[in-house]
């Protein structure tokens, strides 16, 4: 299994932490729930370092542990083993009300008996800031999320999108060192979601605060983040920029969770790997005897059937998607490949079911995944 590439500068000690710009990090963290035989390991030796000022997303399916990790950062859970550090300082056992870290909850958790302004002011008042500062900071936050007109309303009188912005403003008001966002957009409809994604990105850039964002929506992760951490079954599978995650997935899980991928089992041959249908795909530096080749549908090119160096295939189905046409193909040994072609102006791909074609993979797009 692939391990997460160590982020540069993961060092311990207060001084080193700040100098190398790590906002918050988990160091070999394990979290178990329950006892003995029925113990459930939500996080299994997870280490990740999130840099100052970056928009970092934890991405994964339900139950992968991303929310648990977030709660460890916030202080609602404490690690069974390992350390949580904030700017180099160990905060593993610090209660949440003593951590300069704030959370935007999935359910917003707005105080129903307080107005919008009072909700936003709450954290500032708990910090004991003078009344004048509380007032000015609250007004600044209201302006930041454009809710000035609704300051005196109660949460029940607001729409979902507005409540979301209040939750955001409330968490940002005390200027935390790190802002944690637990699937904050999941309750919004599609259009509002897209608007809020842009809004969140703008806020993060403007305030410069480190955001740790949790989601199961890979498109969201790719569009908003500086870096993404992909998680599955309590382990961190890969950490990298959206581009790296997409084009260079390190294992089968990441490759299939992000976008669509064709997986072709192959064995080592002279210049690369031989597929089950007999064709050899040139790969430099092939090491493993057996591997899975991963290629994205948009990187599969169709050529006339007899072209040299192309893999023979037969078209089994054409699915028209408007912008794209998905072309389902079968190789000589029956293996399935999907190619994504941009639809021509007339919509007709000029292809037909049963047609014999050749397949080529774009240079550098093929990923070799060790089994």
């Amino acid at each position, binding site marked *: 299994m692939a391990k997460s590439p160590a982020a540069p500068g993961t060092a311990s000690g207060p001084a080193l932490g700040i100098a190398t710009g790590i906002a918050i990090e988990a160091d070999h963290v394990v979290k178990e729930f329950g006892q003995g035989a029925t113990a459930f390991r939500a996080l299994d030796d997870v280490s990740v370092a999130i840099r100052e000022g970056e928009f970092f997303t934890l991405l994964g399916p339900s139950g992968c542990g991303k929310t648990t990790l977030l709660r460890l950062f916030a*202080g609602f859970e*404490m690690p069974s083993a390992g350390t949580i550090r904030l700017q180099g300082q160990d905060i*593993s056992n610090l209660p*949440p009300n003593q951590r300069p870290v704030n959370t935007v909850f999935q359910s917003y958790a707005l105080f129903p008996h307080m107005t919008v302004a009072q909700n936003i002011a709450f954290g500032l008042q708990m910090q004991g800031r003078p009344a004048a500062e509380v007032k000015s900071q609250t007004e600044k936050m209201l302006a930041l999320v454009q809710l000035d007109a609704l300051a005196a309303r109660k949460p029940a009188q607001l729409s979902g999108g507005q409540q979301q912005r209040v939750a955001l403003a409330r968490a940002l008001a005390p200027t935390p060192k790190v802002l944690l966002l637990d699937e904050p957009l999941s309750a919004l409809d599609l259009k509002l979601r897209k608007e809020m994604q842009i809004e969140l990105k703008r806020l993060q850039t403007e305030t410069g605060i480190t955001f740790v964002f949790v989601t199961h929506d890979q498109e969201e992760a790719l569009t908003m983040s500086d870096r993404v951490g992909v998680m599955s079954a309590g382990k961190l599978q890969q950490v990298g920029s959206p581009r790296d995650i997409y084009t260079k997935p390190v294992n089968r899980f990441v490759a299939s969770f992000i976008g669509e991928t064709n997986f072709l089992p192959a064995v080592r041959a002279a210049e690369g790997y031989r597929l089950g249908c007999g064709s050899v795909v040139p790969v430099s530096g092939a090491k493993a005897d057996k591997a899975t080749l991963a290629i994205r549908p948009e990187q599969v090119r169709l050529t006339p059937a007899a072209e040299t160096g192309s893999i023979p295939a037969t078209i089994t189905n054409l699915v028209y998607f408007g912008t794209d046409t998905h072309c389902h193909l079968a190789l000589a040994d029956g293996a399935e490949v999907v190619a994504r072609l941009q639809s021509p102006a007339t919509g007709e791909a000029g292809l037909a079911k049963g047609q014999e074609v050749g397949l080529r993979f774009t240079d550098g797009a093929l990923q070799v995944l060790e089994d």
Partner: protein
Amino acid sequence: MAKRSFAVNDLPGFATIAIIVFLALYAPMAVLVVFSFNAGESPAQWAGFSLKWYQLALQNDQVQAAAITSLKIAFAAALLSTALATMAALGTTRRKNFKGQTFIYAMINQPLMVPEIVTAVALLLVTAAIKKATGYTGLGYLILAHAAFCIPFAYLPIRARLEGMDLALETAAADLYAGPWQCFRRVTLPLLMPGIFAGAMLAFVTSLDDVVITEFIKSPGQDTLPTYMLGQLRRSMKPDVNAISTGILALTLILLTAFYLATRTRKQPGA
């Protein structure tokens, strides 16, 4: 390294106070029960285990009469109030809100909103007048009075059960050619039974427990267990009161357990 999470629900000291409260609530009653088996007379000194107070109580003519009266009234009142409450629940639930429904609701719950002493006085005046006019001094007054104030206690569990019932079941019955009465008898009523049972339990317990109203409107020579005990407490403190109390406690406990078992939401298919 701490292995627990930050206990969000914990408020300091609350658990301690709660446990003390539970102990304090049960301790006096436990003492009562324990000393009903006390061979000695003084409730503060244990003189050995004995059932003599129970024997005394059971042999006491007045206690017997009072117990029988209590049970008679409770049975009759529970029956009457449950029947009336069931009809009222059927009439006020799962219907579109109609004018006057609030009025009905207020009337049904009225006994809960008026202090018992006021109701007792009111009933005293009425029964005194009727007694003077008719000379009837039977159990009728008590039964009717008890039935009246037991109605809300029977009504609430039945209504709750009715509201929780899946309308689709009766729709299905109608779809299968059942007429309104058949539907009620074969579908609604059986499903409602736990609620009716629970309501009857509560009504029975409430009637059994009543002191004030019974004390005010009973005729001379009529006594329920609570009024008998009240009379005893006024005079001497014979320990047989302990035994009677324990008996009533036991009965209440059994009825309450039956109530809880009847109202437990069990996972039933389609219900």
